[in-house]
């Protein structure tokens, strides 16, 4: 592997980069732009007037804003759950079984060569604008003398990789990945980071002393990473168990609910209310679901099923605006989702059985979570809202997607429906929502929505924003999905008709699976967009991740003065957004590969 065929490589470079005068020119221009960009960024980041501790010291503010420290354990558990399920999923859907040492060395050599290249081209000077005079001065950063030790180490590594790659050895990929994953833990325990220290007069000590990472950060992360690795290994072990995969998929759907109800309020159960309201509602919905599952194949039921669905949609949407207990709203939503998939799955006795199990489990979980989530013992956050900083960004992004995706599917199907009223309503919603900019909708949520709501109902601003976001991205999802629906050849419909399928079966078994598969890349880009768009809530006074860096940190004077250090924070924010969106798009690429997109 490592025996790079020089001639072949030269040919590849020539064919790709210098095949014609135009492409040669383009290669030079782009590489010039890329290199200047890197040099500029590097110079900016390393300039001595930058105070990167303004980022590090405010990490808690960035992540959870004012969430009380005594309840951090809840946040850690939620983050841990997220990691455990990610680990399981990565393990379960791991495609490659084996890997070899030479392959590994090749990857590492590529990374190391990249770093060597960047080290060589990094600038030696950086521009500092003098605050007093406004004059730009050149200051020395990262001189060649400092680079030589680093470069020699890197070159040494390259040689080592070259030598090791000769050894013919192959091993399980899971082993390798677990070793990878353990590296952060080791780093956590040995790394020392600059920390702000105040002396007796409350003045900051310069230069900032290097300290080990605080236990309050180190220990939770260690536990989380270990559970991540364990979950990954469990996932790999149960790879071929289909039920396990299904369980993990369903858990993913339920997880956000658990996380947010857990973060929001301390569970407390009022027995009286439980018996009076929640248990009857629970049993009612349980019965409705089970009856629907078992009577779906009845002729008459089939005939009226689309009307039933339509009614359910109307009731669900209406219930969101009416004053009914939260459990009814949630159960209605859940029932709606189920009723859509029931005709597709509930065709055999086995399907019916598993669907019943899923229905009972998910309804119970929802009821249980809401019971905890709506109790009156809210976590007290002195001064501000529970969600702020990254937790708010995350809430908006996840719940935006979570609610808007099913909404989008329904709207798209409705728009393609042959029933004029449904078609009209869905088209109306989509066009109304899409023709108004998101910022205007946000102002609508912040200022006007109170007027539209029935008397006596008042939502928290965050809830109002969530409703607006759900509809807004729902409309965009709907249009994307409609694109997918149109990509399905007419022959598919005719074939489905020919074997006697009804509309619901046709939609859920033939149309939707293909339509959704075709638009995975568009869907991911929609999710990424809604993740980034969440930063717009700053204009209606919500404190998301971006606002904290832009408005808050640059104004801090007590106890540590970070006034004016907002550019470092902006760069950091950009980096975090990049990490998340990049990870998302990488995962979606793997997902596309698994679905065989673009290959069939």
């Amino acid at each position, binding site marked *: 592997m490592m025996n790079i065929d020089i001639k072949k490589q030269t040919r590849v470079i020539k064919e790709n980069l210098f095949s014609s005068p135009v492409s040669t020119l383009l290669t030079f221009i782009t590489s010039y732009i890329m290199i200047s960009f890197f040099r500029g960024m590097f110079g900016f980041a390393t300039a001595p007037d930058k105070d990167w501790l303004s980022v590090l010291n405010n990490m*808690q*503010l960035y992540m*959870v*804003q*004012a969430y009380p*420290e005594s309840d951090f354990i809840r946040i850690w558990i939620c983050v841990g759950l997220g990691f455990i399920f990610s680990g399981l999923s990565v393990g379960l859907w791991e495609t490659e079984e084996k890997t070899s040492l030479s392959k590994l060395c090749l990857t590492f050599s590529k990374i190391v060569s990249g770093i060597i290249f960047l080290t060589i081209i990094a600038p030696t000077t950086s521009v500092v*604008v003098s*605050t*007093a*005079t*406004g004059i730009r001065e050149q200051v020395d950063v990262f001189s060649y003398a400092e680079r030589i030790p680093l470069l020699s180490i890197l070159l040494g590594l390259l040689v080592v990789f070259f030598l090791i790659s000769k050894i013919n050895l192959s091993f399980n990929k899971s082993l390798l990945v677990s070793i990878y994953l353990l590296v952060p833990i080791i780093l956590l325990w040995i790394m020392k980071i600059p920390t702000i220290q105040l002396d007796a007069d409350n003045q900051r000590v310069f230069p900032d002393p290097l300290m080990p990472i605080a236990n309050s950060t180190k220990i939770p992360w260690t536990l989380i990473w270990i559970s991540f690795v364990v979950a990954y290994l469990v996932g790999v072990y149960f790879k071929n168990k289909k039920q396990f995969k299904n369980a993990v998929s369903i858990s993913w759907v339920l997880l956000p609910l658990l996380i947010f109800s857990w973060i929001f309020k301390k569970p407390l159960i009022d027995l009286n209310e439980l018996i009076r*309201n929640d248990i*009857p*509602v629970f049993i*009612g919905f349980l*019965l*409705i679901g089970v*009856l629907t599952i078992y*009577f779906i194949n*009845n002729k*008459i*039921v089939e005939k009226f099923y689309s009307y*039933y669905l339509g*009614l*359910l949609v109307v*009731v669900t949407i209406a*219930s969101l605006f*009416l*004053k*009914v*207990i939260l459990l*009814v709203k949630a159960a*209605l939503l859940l029932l709606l989702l189920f009723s859509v998939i029931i005709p597709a799955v509930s065709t055999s006795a086995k399907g019916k059985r598993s669907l019943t199990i899923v229905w009972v489990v998910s309804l119970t979980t929802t009821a249980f979570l809401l019971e905890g989530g*709506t109790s009156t013992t809210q976590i007290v*956050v*002195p*001064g*501000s809202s529970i969600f702020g900083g990254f937790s708010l960004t995350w809430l908006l992004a996840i719940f935006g997607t979570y609610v808007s995706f099913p909404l989008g599917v329904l709207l798209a199907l409705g728009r393609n429906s042959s029933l004029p009223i449904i078609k009209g309503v869905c088209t109306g919603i989509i066009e109304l929502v899409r023709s108004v900019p998101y910022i205007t909708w946000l102002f609508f949520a*912040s*200022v006007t929505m109170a007027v539209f709501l029935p*008397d*006596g*109902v*008042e939502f928290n601003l965050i809830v109002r924003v969530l409703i607006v976001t759900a509809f807004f991205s729902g409309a965009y999802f709907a249009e994307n999905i409609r694109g997918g629906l149109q990509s399905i050849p007419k022959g598919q419909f005719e074939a489905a008709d020919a074997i006697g399928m009804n509309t619901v079966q046709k939609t859920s078994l033939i149309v939707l699976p293909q339509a959704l598969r075709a638009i995975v890349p568009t869907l991911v880009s929609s999710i990424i967009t809604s993740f980034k768009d969440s930063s717009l809530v700053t*204009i*209606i*006074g919500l*404190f998301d991740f971006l606002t904290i860096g832009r*408005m*808050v940190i*640059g*104004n*801090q*004077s*007590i106890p540590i*003065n970070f*006034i*004016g250090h*907002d*550019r470092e924070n902006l760069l950091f924010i950009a980096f975090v957004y990049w990490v998340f969106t990049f990870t998302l798009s990488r995962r979606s690429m793997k997902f596309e590969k698994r679905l065989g997109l673009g290959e069939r």
Partner: protein
Amino acid sequence: MNKKAIVFLLVFAMVIVACGDTTEEAAVEATEEEHDHEGESTLEQVQERGFLKCGVSTGATGFTEVGDDGSYSGFDVDYCYAVAAAIFGDYSKVEFKQLTSAERFTALSAGEIDVLIRNTTWTQSRDTELGNDFGPTTYYDGQQLMGRVADGLSNSSTVADIDGLRVCTNAGTTTEKNITERVGLAGGTIQLITVEAFSEAIDKFIAGECDIVTTDGSGLVGRRAVNDALNDWVIFPTSPISKEPLGPTYRSNDSQWADIINWTVYATIIADEYGVTAANVDSADLEANPELGRLFGANDGELQTKMGLSADAYYQVIKQVGNYDEIFSRNLNPLGLYREGGDNDRWADGGLIYAPPAR
């Protein structure tokens, strides 16, 4: 077949019943808050709610800051704490709403906040047209300009000297109107560059994208100090180009609520006049100073109870938050802003900070 249809119809009916039935009951324990506060005074609403909703700035150094643990501090924030201490005897019962300058008055009139303490300038139109009333001024500020000595500016420069220069300031504030008006009067022209947040204006100033930056003097002094530019940046003219009295703002036509806010501010000023601080409030000689006695709850605190507060309301304010001088020096001295000799000094020392007697 028919039987099954009936079963299905039953299912249908259950959906409707399930919804209809709970609608009535849910009205009692609905998760949403009750909104029906017609005819209730602001004080009653606040007491019923159990905490004060205080509108503050999205970020103004020294006035509203959010610390690295999400806690609030600053001059304006301390007055929010003081009002909460007066109403509940517990300063921490405040929920802060951080508002941009564009949305602050809307939020106040929509009832999203009970009081706005967000370095807001008291002007005639804001007082008369917007349905607001202004409380006593807590900080006398004035708009000034900041330029570079290197550009030939000095303490004695005037607005006429900035003809043709680029000026950075916040959009949508009185600052923007003042500078345009003044420069127009002086017969000059400037290139106005407006930004959303003042920190951006300073960034542009440092980067040389504008020659002059203008806002309230308090903001300029603070920024000059933290940038170590005492000798290179100059703040002028010596007497500000505008008057910016900053203080609490509340909705019109609720005089009980107005009294509570006003007297909270006055209490901090009176305590300062007597030298009573959070540290020595317990040992203050109330016999020798009957005014203090009345303020802190003598005669069963009838002055306070008639306002709808508890007898020791203002004692709690001083005990938990501090007097005017403490609030001022705690938040603004680190920025290089001092009371001595300025407008914010005690009236007895030639300043403007004055409170009516507590009697």
